[in-house]
């Protein structure tokens, strides 16, 4: 892991076209400004972790546990 110290309004550049700037610090909160190409996914880490966890819970679904007839679409 790279550990780096930055002041407010200073940034870091990753891989040429991803830029992260420290915009401000309020108490224990740090505000970042991020510019990246559209294809770059930028997410809060806890959101990605939550999706991973949900995928793990869903990944071994078994048809034996399911009565599909009880599902009625609201369509």
């Amino acid at each position, binding site marked *: 892991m790279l550990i780096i110290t930055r002041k407010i309004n200073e940034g870091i550049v990753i891989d040429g076209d991803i830029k992260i700037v420290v915009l401000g610090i309020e108490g224990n909160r740090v505000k970042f400004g991020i510019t990246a*190409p*559209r*294809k770059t*996914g930028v*997410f809060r880490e806890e*959101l*990605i972790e*939550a*999706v*991973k*966890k*949900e*995928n*793990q*819970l*869903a*990944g*071994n*679904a*078994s*048809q034996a*546990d*399911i*009565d*599909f*007839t*009880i*599902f009625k*679409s*609201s*369509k």
Partner: protein
Amino acid sequence: MLVKTRQFGEISIDDKEIITFPAGILAFEENRRFIIIPVENNPFFSWLQSIDEPSLSFLLIDPFSIQLGFYVDIDESLKDELEIKKQEDVLVHTIVTIPKEGFKKATTNLLAPIIINLEKKKAKQIVLDGMPSYIKYPLFPPKEKLKASSG
């Protein structure tokens, strides 16, 4: 080719049916090749079965069947990534989670839908910018409590 699956036994598939997730599915990044197996008698569900891992299968649902206001914005970069040329080629499904309490308590992850280009057989699980509670959106919304009779 023949594919071993935990749920469906050994099944024979046409290689052309294989759907590739170039970026993998979150938490299962190693498993990139899947096939879609329809659910008999229920058009809203299907199975996303791994080709390489027999025990890995996700139940998918048509999210529009439970949340009419649901929408996904397929932006230009996703179009490029999945080589999407026509809207008709795009299938949007979400993953269903069945908890220990059973199918009646099943939820689906509206926050991270699976986008499939049926024409090019390329797919991706995208993460939307939305409410975290949409990760567990109920298939069977809890019924409102019955009102006490005034009688």
